[in-house]
């Protein structure tokens, strides 16, 4: 499932929602990305995340489907927020559901690597006296 939304999400509910229908799943690997308080040697106040919504849905679905096929996942959840986010707020959740842990770990890492490279989101960081558009580093 792919969700691109402004509002926050609850990890327990989002993961339970999918896991409850998958009793053969023994392993869920997840990654949660947060707004950091310090970047580029400056204190961060907040960020604004811009998204090319329709393309992001397509790109994330593509990445998700590749991972599901490659690691035989039972399911995969990607939630990415956009809009104004304060320090310590969640930005992204990736959760991979598989029978055993090896596949879920590898799939989760793969999805994050591609998401950082190809998903059309842009972060603008607001510091105390200026703001700056970011570029992902690998």
């Amino acid at each position: 499932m792919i969700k691109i939304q402004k509002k926050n999400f609850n990890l327990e509910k989002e993961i339970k929602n999918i896991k409850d229908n998958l009793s053969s799943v023994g392993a869920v690997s997840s990654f949660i990305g947060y707004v950091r308080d310090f970047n580029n040697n400056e204190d961060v106040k907040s960020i604004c995340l811009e998204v090319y919504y329709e393309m992001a849905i397509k790109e994330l679905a593509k990445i998700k489907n590749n991972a599901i096929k490659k690691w035989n996942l039972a399911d995969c959840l990607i939630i990415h927020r956009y809009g104004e986010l304060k320090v310590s707020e969640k930005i992204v959740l990736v959760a991979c559901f598989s029978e055993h842990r090896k596949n879920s770990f590898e799939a989760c890492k793969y999805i994050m690597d591609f998401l950082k490279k190809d998903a059309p989101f842009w972060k603008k960081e607001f510091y105390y006296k200026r703001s700056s558009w970011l570029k992902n580093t690998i």
Partner: protein
Amino acid sequence: MIIKYFAWIKDITDKDYDEIKNNPPKTINDLKKMLCESYPDLEKHINSDILRYAINMEYTSINQKLNSKDEIAIFPPVSGG
């Protein structure tokens, strides 16, 4: 044809998108030329090859042909996640 702008590209174009009804560019290279003329501040970025282009929400890295009903997007390196 719709040309969409994102992130700091939008700071240069000062708008979210352009709609081109007459004589739309026929290739990505045509589009680049057109953008350089309309937005001189974009030229150095277009020439530096850091920008990415999508046609109907699919990345393109070659000088692909464009259709008058295409939605083109031009944007800087992504920074989500």
